[in-house]
Every structure is written in C-alpha cells, then in structure tokens.
C-alpha cells in the first residue's frame, strides 16, 4: 500500500481519496456481497457496478458515483474481469478519471497506483528507475532498483491507473505492450523479470478531442477495450451532476453553507450546453461556439468559484452577480474570438429569455 505521510490526520487533508471517503459504502457492499469474486478482487463484478451506479444494499444507501448509461459501466467492469486493459475515452469533464478512480477503489481497494502521463514521461517512470548511489556501490541488483507504480501494481496484484495516456510519447506508450500481452515486465539488466499477480490490470484514460495528443499505436490499441464516456444526455441530467459535484467539492473545501444552488446551476449548464452544441436547446437558433470545450467539468468549477465568491463576499446565495464573472472567465479563453461569441449569445439569446434579465445585466457589466 502507498504510505500517506499525514494519514493520521485525514481531516486536514485538502482532498480525501475515494477509498477514505467511501470506506463505509465499500464495507457495506462487501458485507452483503455473496457473488463470486475474481482472484485479487475485493468485490464481485456485480458489486462493483452497484458501487459505481449506486443503489441500496441491506438498508445502507450507496451514492451513485457515475450518472449515465449503466451498460457502459458494465462493459468497463466486465473488461477488467476478463483481464483486458480498459481505456476510457471522452471529452474533458465526462468523468473519466472519476470513474477510473472509483473502479480502482472498488476492485483493488486503492486508487493510489497512478501514473500521470505527460509529454515528459519517460520509460523509467513507466518501468523502473535506479538508485544510482546503490547502483555504484553494489552493482546492479534488486535493491538498487526503484520500482515504478506499474511494477508495484504488478507485484501486489492491484489496478494501475494511467491518466491522459495519449499525452505521453508514442514510444513510451509502447512500453506497455509487453506488460499487457505477457503480463510480465522484463528487467534485462538483472536477467530477471517481474510477473504480475492476479488482480493486476490497467485503466487508462484519454481525451479524444484534445489537441497535441499522441495517437495510440494500433498494436497498443488492440490490447485495450475501449469505453467511450459520452457527455450527459440532457440539461437535467447534467445539472444534477454539476449540483452534486459542486456540493461535494464545496463541502470538502469547507466553504460556508449557502442557499440551494440548483436553479442557478441549471442556468450555467444551459448556457454551456447551448454554446457547446452551437444551437439553443430548442434547436431553433444557431449560435457560435467558443474555442474552449465548455465541458461539465468547467461548469462545476464555475459553480464552485461562484459559491466561494458568494459565501465570502456576496449575499450568501448564488446569484447573477457572483455567477457572471465566473461564467465570463470560463467562456472567454481567447480574448478576441470568444468575446464575440459571448456578446452574440448575450444579445440574441439571454436578452430575450424571460427571467434571465439579471444575469444578462450582470454579464454585460463584467464585460
């Protein structure tokens, strides 16, 4: 297990990990889980799906972690149960990392075996590094080897999470091929290799609409089962997600409590959806789309930002004034183009929408 330096004092931790936050739920599910578990799994596949999608287990309420198509989560869990690696694809804010974290928690009990892939990630960070002092003193040996999260996962038989897989260079990505097909990591320097224990598997996430990504090689792609997580279907569904996440984050940040936020969040989600899809919700009017993606994740951060502002400086409730600056900040990423988009939206959509006058005025003032 990964050691946390301040594990004795969890309450001061900025963000609690899923395994800590939902420990009671996992316990409740595990207690009533009678189905067979694949070796190395803490829960049965059915119980994992229940943990992610929510439900009731012997009287205790399990909160839904993912709101959306159950079939997708079932495919993801079944993939992991068949020893195939899982690749979660989707635009930003479709809960890829969130789902991956909770899958790891439910299956392996820990979400902490994690590699954040970046353009600077090299092979040593994927496979293993060397403790050079030891290497010089004793020569190549297992003691001189610094294991990567991947290697540790293989030895423990737990899930490894690879975040933003496609941000990493293609040659480095291909290091995974041996691991995925042979379930072993050779260490040629020691004429040795690490063999994965049962329970080991990989969950990768990648953004399929991002610029500057390194396309997966077909050899690697073949070794993954792909599940595409879509954007929420309707305004109501998306609003529910945003409201819940904002509440969770806000509570975690110990923001002062404020009045219910549902109605205002619904407006933010409406604006984001309309701009993202390039048309009004009723489909009657075409709109310009801004350069940013305006994903659900961004709506959440607008909600949290507005909450902080309202609680500390404003009236204590989300209102047009606290929202406006946050909305403008989220939409206008390119000072020239996006400004036109925002202005057009203001004048052609918001001005005529009944009950939106306050937001219209507030945003105009900010711009």
């Amino acid at each position, binding site marked *: 297990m990964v050691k946390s330096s301040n594990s004795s004092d969890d309450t001061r931790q900025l963000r609690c990990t899923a395994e800590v936050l939902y420990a009671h739920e996992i316990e409740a599910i595990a207690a009533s889980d009678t189905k067979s578990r694949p070796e190395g799994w803490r829960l049965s*596949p*059915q119980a994992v*799906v229940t943990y992610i999608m929510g439900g009731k287990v012997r009287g205790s309420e399990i909160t839904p972690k993912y709101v959306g198509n159950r*079939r997708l989560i*079932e*495919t993801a*869990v*079944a*993939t992991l*149960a*068949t020893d*195939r690696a899982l*690749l979660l*694809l989707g635009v930003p804010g479709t809960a890829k990392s969130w789902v991956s974290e909770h899958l790891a928690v439910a299956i392996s009990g820990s979400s902490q075996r994690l590699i954040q892939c970046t353009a600077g990630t090299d092979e040593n960070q994927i496979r293993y590094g060397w403790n050079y002092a030891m290497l010089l003193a004793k020569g190549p040996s297992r003691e001189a080897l610094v294991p990567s999260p991947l290697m540790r996962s293989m030895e423990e038989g737990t899930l490894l999470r690879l975040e933003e897989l496609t941000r990493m260079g293609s040659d480095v990505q291909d290091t995974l091929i041996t691991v995925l097909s042979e379930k072993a990591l050779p260490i040629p320097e020691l004429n040795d290799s690490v063999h994965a224990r049962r329970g080991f598997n990989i969950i990768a996430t990648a953004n399929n609409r991002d610029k500057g990504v390194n396309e997966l090689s*077909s050899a690697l*792609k*073949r070794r*993954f*089962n*792909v*599940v*595409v997580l879509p954007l929420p279907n309707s305004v109501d569904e998306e609003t529910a997600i945003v409201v819940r996440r904002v509440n969770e984050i806000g509570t975690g940040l110990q923001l002062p409590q404020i009045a219910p936020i549902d109605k205002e969040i619904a407006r933010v989600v409406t604006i984001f959806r309309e701009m993202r899809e390039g048309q009004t919700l009723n489909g009657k009017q075409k709109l310009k789309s801004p350069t940013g993606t305006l994903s659900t994740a961004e709506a959440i951060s607008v909600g949290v930002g507005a909450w902080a502002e309202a609680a500390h400086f404003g009236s204590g409730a989300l209102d047009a004034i606290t929202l406006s600056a946050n909305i403008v900040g989220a939409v206008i990423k390119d000072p020239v183009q996006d400004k036109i988009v925002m202005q057009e939206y203001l004048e052609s959509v918001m001005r005529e929408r009944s009950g939106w006058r306050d937001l219209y005025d507030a945003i105009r003032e900010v711009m």
Partner: protein
Amino acid sequence: MKSGRTHFLGIRHHGPGSAASVVAALDAINPHIVLIEGPADANSVLAYAANSGMHPPLAILVHDQDDPVRASFFPFADFSPEWQALQWALRRQIPVRFIDLPAGQRFSLRENKFEADEASASNSDFLRRDPLSALAEAAGESDGESWWNGLVEQSGGGPEVFSAIAEAMSALRSEVEKQYPLSHHEAQREAHMRLEISQALRETQEDIAVVCGAWHVPALTPLVPAKQDRELLKGTKSAKVIVTWVPWTDSRLAAASGYGAGIISPGWYRHLWHEFYVRSSTRQPVEVAACWQSKVASLLREEGQLTSSASVIESARLALALASLRNHPLPGLAEMQDASLSVMCHGDSILLKMIHERLVIGHAIGEIDEIVPQMPLAEDLRRWQKKLRMKPSAAQEDLSVDLRSETGLLKSELLHRLLLIDVPWGRLTEAQAGRGTFREIWTIVWQPELSVKLVEALRFGTTIEQAAGNAALDAFEKETSLARGAELISLCLNANLCEAAELLTHKLQVLSVNTTDIEQVLRAVPPLANILRYGTARKLPHAALAKLVSGMCVEISAGLVTACRGLNEEVAIAMRDAMRLYDSAVPLLEGPHISQSWKNALSELEADDAASALLRGFALRRLYDEGSRTETEAATRLSRALSMSVPILDAGQWLEGFLNQSAQLLVHDTRLFSLIDSWLMELPEDSFIELLPVMRRAVGRFDTMERRRMMEKVKSGTFEDAVSPAIAEGAAMSAAFQKALPLLNSILGLDE
C-alpha cells in the same frame, strides 16, 4: 399450460426461444390436433408449408378477391414458433389449423368500426404485441429474448415454462385491462379462437395444443358459453379472399408489419436459432458468442477494417463476462453489441452502424416451392425468372444487360414490362437511360410488396406481356400530355410490345393533331426520333411512326413563332429547353424538309420582335452555329437586340438566350468571342455602363470554372479579332487594359 385436454403454449411472435420451447413442448405433449393463432381463411394453404422447396422468410398473403389492394400479410421466419409448430404437425401428419378471425372479416371490419378501435387501442399496442418485451423492460432486461432465456433457465427448459408465462400474462392482463379495456375487435378474435378450440375438442378424445401469442392465453382458458361467443361474432361477414404464399424478406420482418409483432433483429434471431436452439444439446454459450463475433469481424473486414482473430476471441470473452455480470445465461444482442463496440470497434459506434443492416437485420429472402399455386402473373414471372436465371434478391444489386444477346434482350424486355405494370423490380440507372447503346445497367431489388402490385396488375391481364400492353394503353388514356405519350411508346418498344406501340402511335397522332401546345410537341419528338434512329433492333411500326413524327415537325414549324409570343420568363425558359431538346433531335430525323422547315421557323422567330427575347437570342445563336447567318449579320442583329432603346431586362434575356449557357463554346469559338467583344468595344461609355448589369446577369449563369476560363482568355488578349481590327495586339499589355482587369473580375463575379 394445461386446461382440461387443451395445452396452451403462449409464445412470443418470432421469438427463437419460444420456438424452441414450443417444439420441446409439442414433443412432450404429443397432441392430436395443433391449433395456431393465424387467420382461419388461410387454412387451405397450410399444407404447402411441408414442401421441401419452402424456405422462410415467407408470408401468407390474403387479399380481397375483387379489390387486391385490401391485403394482409402474415409473415413467418424459420425461427417463428408458429412456423415450427406448423412444421411439427405437418411432419407427423397431425391435423393443424389456424384459429384466428378470418382475414376476410378484417377487410369488412376495416370499413366500419375497426379504425376507431385501432385508435383507442394504440396506447396498449406495444403491450399487446409483445407483452414479454414489456415485462422484460420492467424487469430491466434489454429485450424479450433474454428474458425468455432466463425464464427457460429457471423453469428447467421443459414445457413448464408455459405455465409461468400464462401466470405472468394473467397478472399483466388484469392490470392492463383496468386501464385500457379490451377492444371490440380483440374480443371478437378471442371469441373466434375459443369457438375453434371447443370445435377441435369435440373432434378428438385426445389432447390438443394451442399455439398463440402469450397475451391471449388468459382469455382462452376460461370456459365461456359458446352462445355468448357466437353472439359476439354475429353479423360479421367475410369478404371473398384469395390466399397464397409469397416470399418475404428480413428487412420486412424487422419492421412492424401486418400481423402485429414486428421484431427488430432477424439476423440475430436467426443466429440464435441455428447456432443455439437447433443444436442446444451440443452448443455452449461460448460457441454462440464466438460464432457471432466472427461474423461481426468478417463484416468489418469487408468494410476495410483490420480485425484480427485475437479480437474476435476477446470480444467473445467480453460478451460472456457481460452476460454473467448481468445474470443472463446466454449473451443477448445487447451484450454482443457492447463487446464488439468496445473491442473490435475501439469504442467507435459509427463502425457498428455501418454493418448494422447486414449484421442485425440480414438480407435473407424466402423461396416458394413450385407446387404452390401462384396468381397467374406471379406464376408467369416465376417462369421468366427461371428461364432467364434471374433470382429475386432483397439486397440491391446492379445488373448489366447486353442487348445484343438474346437473353440480355429478354431480360431488358421483362424489366421494362414490369415497369409498365408498376412492379419496379429493376430501375434503369439514370446515367444509362435513353442512351443509344447496346448495354443497359439496372439496379434490381425485390421487395415483398411487389407481390401485391403483381396482384393489382391482374386487372390488366394474366400474363406479364398482356398486362404490360394493357397497362400502357390504360396509362395513355389517362394521360393528356404528348411528351408522356411519346415516352410510353418508347417504353412499349423497349418492352417489345409492338401491338401496343402501334395502337399508341395512332392514338398519339390523333392527340397531336388536336393539341395547341407547341412545347409539348417539341418534347414529344426527341424520344420518337431516338426510336426511329436507333430502335432498329426491335420490330417497329416504322412507317406509322415516321409519318407521325413528320406530321409533328410540320406542326412545330407552323406554330413556333406564335407559341413564342408573350411568354413570361419561366415559361420562356421551359420553351427554350424544349426547343433545345428538339433541336438536337432534328439531325436524327430523315428527310431534309424537316431540318429546312426548322431553320425557317427559327429565322422567323429570330426576326419577330413580339416573341420572347430569350427565345429570339437562342434562335439567332442556333442559326449562327448552323452557318445560316454570317458573322456580320450576327453582329448587326446582336447590337440591334442590345441597343439602348431595348428595355434592359429584354436585352439581358436576349443575351442569355444567345450565349445559350455555353461558356465553353464562347471560350473556344474565337469568332463568337470576338463578335461579342467587338460589340462591347463599340458601345459608347454611357451605354456600356448601362449594360453592365445585363452582361453580369448573362454570365452569372456560368459556373465559376467557366467564368475563370473566360477571364484567362481576356487576360491573355491573344484572340483573333476578325470583325474589328481596332484593337491592336499590344493593347493587352497597355496600362489601361491592366487597370480594367480587377473591374472585369467583379463583373464576372470572380472576386468573392
């Protein structure tokens, strides 16, 4: 479920699971009579189903004797429980009967109160059609089949499953009927079935089996006094009907049709039936999954996707894991699709959509044994199909026909005849239509409703040849336009219907004499001219046709000028198009008098100031191209037509007619180009500016490419100038000339 001596087998229409259970149950019960939910008036043709040449999907077609449009289809696939029950009984030579209300009764019902019933029943429609899917949905299953599978698994696979179904249906029906009371029609159907069941019970002392939609089971079990049922059916009368078997297709099965239960995935059900149920003792779920996934892979490969065997294995494993995760004994279509999507398509649903039709729906088309009596036209068509080796197929195919070979000619004739009786089995592809070559390319696809159209065509005759001829004459009677008449003649000749063609020629003659619409005559000539010129491969009423055409030409020459007067722009354009068609047909016609009289008519038109400007421009252009007008003459006419006194709009139209949408010619024909060029050069500045919009409008109809070419030509400045040598060669290089180019760009509309 057993009630007295009657075993009720409540099924899901077209459900392979039900079919397998029905066969197993029949084996166990060994009934002496089998009754099936199906129209009672179809009983006469049931025995044919035993013939070896009957390959589902098939349908029983019931149509009104007097009015074939009133028809109903009752489709069966090989995995339909009704079909399997029928086969079971026929194999053992046990009496088998359909017991539902006769279809003929529905036809007469439809006229009075059936429609009202249908409207009120539509809410509970889904429930009635496929109550098991409704239950499955409530239980969170993806479709009725996986639900049925689970049920069979629970009840141990024996006939006990039908007791469970009957129980579930009783509960469901009592709930539903509280909300939507049973419609009158529905009540009548069930009364009829009850009466038939008691009739069968009287006939034998042994057990009988009733195979019907699960929905009906609760209503058929209780003992209702026969008198009450008869009361309900009183006063219904049945139309006289004709019943036969017709081939059916997968795509039709997939759509909700005729007899209620439409299913969504024949391809998948067929796979289940053949790979699992037929050999259920030897087949494991893993084989069913692997077999399906390799089907998916081969279709993906056909689409050019590299799909390895390794991914087939992985897809099958994932499908099985998903099935066990969802507590299904066998992967359903949903599991299979999820697995293919995730493994073979890398999450890209477009790939799956591409193969959806072939994979999930399928392209199967049924076959009928030769012994089955067909309607005369269908019989005739089958004879031809056999002779010409043309098998009807549900998939769209291209057929290339060589008219020089005898079979090719016959094939083309058959397809043309079918077109005439409105049975569009084949369509001549547009690019080839009407071209005088020996090759025809047809797109052929057989649709089951063509069987109905064949029945409808019976009113024209009992062989395809006879019916086609009569249909053409009938169409002509309804048609007053000459152009369509001429087309019909051409169609008749292509279909080798000489008698009809001859008759039509006479009729057209009469019609053309009485017509006053020159545009129609103009349009009627080209197809006839084509026949006269190229149609010699077929026997022709040559003399009559030639006489007709020459008569029409005379009429055109006489009436052209008057017909071109006082037209608005739209009509003028239609007229211009008709003239262009006719103009290209004139050289095909024999006899110098025709082309001479056309030329005369054109000169008259060109000089007639009252005629539409567009057409005058066109006329001059044709004459100029022919060489009947010299360049100088043409130049004079040009500047006259475009002089300042002429209203701008007229001038524009004239120019448009003159340019005749042919920028190509303008670019390549230097004489023509310089003609217009010199006219422009000689214009005083004021008039030039006045005329700019006219020019802009006339060239505006050219496409960008053509306009760009013209620009290139002007820029190069190297065209010969025959009429006005005023422009020196060096002019192209002069500063003024270069300065003017941007303006020219904007006139030509190239600067945007």
